[in-house]
């Protein structure tokens, strides 16, 4: 991984993303992991099985994806699942630098559990703690799984799940009597 | 002898006069002035106004009085976890002892107004330096008695700093003794005789002594024991109200006392004024000259706040041992050399 002559001028992100996607797909194929692809604008998600995610992560790491930019979890109550996507990219490989590839799994909504990837990517540590407190996903093997941002009582309510409802006030609500009289 | 005469005699006795009037009252005024100058000078360098609205004509000087009154009337909180006696005693003792050096320094060459008998005057520099090293003990005690992590760390830092600056201060002042060949402060002042200030003749020793004063009163860039970003207010974190004001004032009083010694040893003492006979010419005016010189030193130290940051503890120690100590030693050597060729 030579660094010095890395980036010169402005780059074409579409090309970078294409290269990153090709790199990630071939790495997963070489490791013998089956995956499906979900497209997005500006990134791509590779969905794998929860059993093979550690192997897949190691394959991606060896392919040059150095760090996690986001552990993105999305709650789908209709599908009864929570999607956890590790969006990874590289700082050091000139070909794929900045290209965002997601390594995603779907977990059941009841008692979601998956192995922690912070052993593979150190940068995932705090983000996994975040997903743990907001969605209740338990990461097995995480070195320090505690709530990061919330106080424990709130973390127990899993605030970012869709069944934790925060309501907006309507445009007539909350006017004190003095003002309402006009 | 009537009671009034006895009282006048006691007050008029130079050690009492010097500690109580020049020392306590004078340094109280000077502490207020120095804090005000520190804030105003920093404000000037920082392109702003500084304290203003309490007394626009006086440049906000009354804000300092307001601060003192507010401290005096604020409810003093004494946490249950502190060690009570040292917690209360440390700031008071620290302040009193900070002023004690003034009981032994002469403000005039007229023997009638010396605080010590002429035989003891021979060692006045040594005695003053010996007392000067005491007050930091009480800062450490204050920190330790507070029983607060930040206070303890602050106290330990103070302890480290003492080790560094004490030697340099003493060696720096000894540079003056080496130049003049005496420990008698009067003789040292007389040897400078007007224009030949030791600060010019022996700049190495002067610089070492000056920086040691800066270090010992934890002024910038050596404000390490009270370094806010890590240890809040350092040893004084738990102090509130009047006790905190005493602590703050104590540092300025120590700076003032040390500056007087510096003014005597390096800045020509009461010269250009030649003390004559009588109370006014023989004592009061010379001491005013010395105090003015000391105030200038205090203000110069205050000014450093505006331009410097803080050294790290180990860097300050590094500087002290690796640069200032050799410099102070070189100052002594220079002094001996100057004395040998008869320059002083």
């Amino acid at each position, binding site marked *: 991984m030579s660094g010095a002559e890395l980036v010169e001028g402005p780059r074409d992100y579409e090309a970078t993303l294409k290269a990153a996607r090709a790199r990630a797909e071939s790495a997963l194929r070489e490791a013998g992991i089956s995956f499906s692809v979900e497209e997005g604008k500006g990134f791509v998600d590779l969905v794998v099985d929860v059993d093979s995610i550690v192997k897949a992560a190691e394959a991606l790491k060896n392919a040059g994806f150095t760090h996690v930019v986001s552990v993105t979890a999305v709650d789908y109550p209709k599908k009864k699942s929570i999607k956890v996507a590790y969006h990874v990219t590289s700082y050091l490989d000139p070909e794929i630098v900045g290209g965002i590839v997601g390594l995603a799994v779907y977990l059941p909504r009841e008692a979601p559990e998956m192995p922690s990837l912070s052993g593979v990517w150190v940068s995932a540590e705090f983000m996994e703690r975040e997903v743990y407190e907001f969605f209740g996903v338990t990461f097995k093997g995480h070195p320090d799984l505690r709530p990061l941002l*919330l106080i424990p009582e709130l973390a127990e309510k899993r605030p970012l799940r869709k069944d934790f409802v925060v309501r907006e006030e309507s445009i007539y609500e909350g006017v004190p009597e003095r003002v309402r009289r006009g | 002898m009537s009671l009034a005469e006895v009282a006048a005699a006691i007050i008029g006795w130079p050690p009492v006069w010097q500690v109580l009037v020049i020392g306590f009252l004078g340094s109280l005024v000077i502490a207020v002035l120095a804090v005000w100058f520190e804030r105003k000078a920093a404000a000037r360098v920082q392109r702003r*106004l500084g304290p203003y609205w*309490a007394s626009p004509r006086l440049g906000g000087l009354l804000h300092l009085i307001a*601060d003192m009154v507010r401290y005096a009337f*604020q409810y003093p909180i004494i946490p249950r976890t502190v060690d009570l006696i040292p917690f209360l005693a440390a700031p008071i003792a620290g302040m009193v002892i900070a002023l004690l050096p003034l009981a032994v320094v002469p403000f005039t060459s007229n023997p009638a107004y010396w605080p010590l008998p002429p035989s003891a005057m021979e060692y006045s520099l040594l005695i003053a330096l010996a007392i000067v090293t005491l007050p930091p003990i009480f800062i450490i005690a204050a920190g330790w008695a507070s029983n607060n992590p930040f206070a303890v760390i602050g106290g330990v830092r103070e302890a480290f700093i003492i080790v560094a600056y004490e030697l340099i201060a003493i060696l720096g002042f000894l540079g003056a003794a080496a130049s003049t060949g005496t420990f008698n402060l009067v003789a040292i002042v007389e040897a400078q005789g007007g224009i030949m200030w030791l600060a010019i003749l022996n700049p190495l020793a002067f610089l070492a002594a000056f920086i040691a004063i800066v270090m010992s009163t934890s002024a910038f860039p050596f404000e390490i024991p009270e370094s806010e970003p890590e240890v809040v207010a350092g040893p004084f974190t738990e102090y*509130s109200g009047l006790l905190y004001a005493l602590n703050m004032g104590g540092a300025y009083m120590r700076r003032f006392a040390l500056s007087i010694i510096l003014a005597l040893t390096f800045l020509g003492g009461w010269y250009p004024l030649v003390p004559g006979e009588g109370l006014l010419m023989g004592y009061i005016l010379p001491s005013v000259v010395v105090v003015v010189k000391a105030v200038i030193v205090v203000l110069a130290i205050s000014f450093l706040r505006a331009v410097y940051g803080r050294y790290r503890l180990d860097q300050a120690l590094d500087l002290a041992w690796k640069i200032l100590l050799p410099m102070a030693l070189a100052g002594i050597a220079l002094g001996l050399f100057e004395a040998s060729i008869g320059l002083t």
Partner: protein
Amino acid sequence: MEEGKVYVGNLDVAAKRARDILLGKLKLEKVVDWANAFSLWPVHLTTSCCSTEFAATFGPRFDGEQFGALPWVGPRQTNLIVIEGTVTRKMACAVRVTWEQMPHPKYAIAMGACALDGGLFYNSYNVVRPWEVIPIDIYIPGCPPRPESVARAIVELQRKIRGRRVASSWIREGWRPDRDYVAPKEDYCAWQKTSPLLERV
């Protein structure tokens, strides 16, 4: 004896007597109020992002120090809290503890919409209203308020202290006559006592 304090001898009685003499006989009330008004030292408590404008208030262009306000480090030496924006559930404990650590007479300014009624975060699950945590003297609208607004708040607070004799009557009575003491409805620090955050592996 009040929790958390230790008195030497009957310091309490002595203090009361001194108070009576100084404020009662010598009529130092005006001086005390004046001193409090021109020596409002805000404690360093950055609850949220209004701290950027608070910092600008004490920057050279608006220079809060011209009113005698000097941002200071520890709560023990200060007498003003400026709630700089949102107070979250996690921070509420720190706000309350800081307030209690300050010696009275002490004052509070709530800065910004978040500190008044939550502002943008009015329906957030993690936000508390600061006036439920500590008693507030002056409210500044805005998100964030301009530095002039903070300066205006300091000026108004000075007038309030001098006009209504807040400081001297507080010192004489031992509590604040013109305002009810706000005791928080819930214990904002409860989570710390049971928190796994403090349990180390």
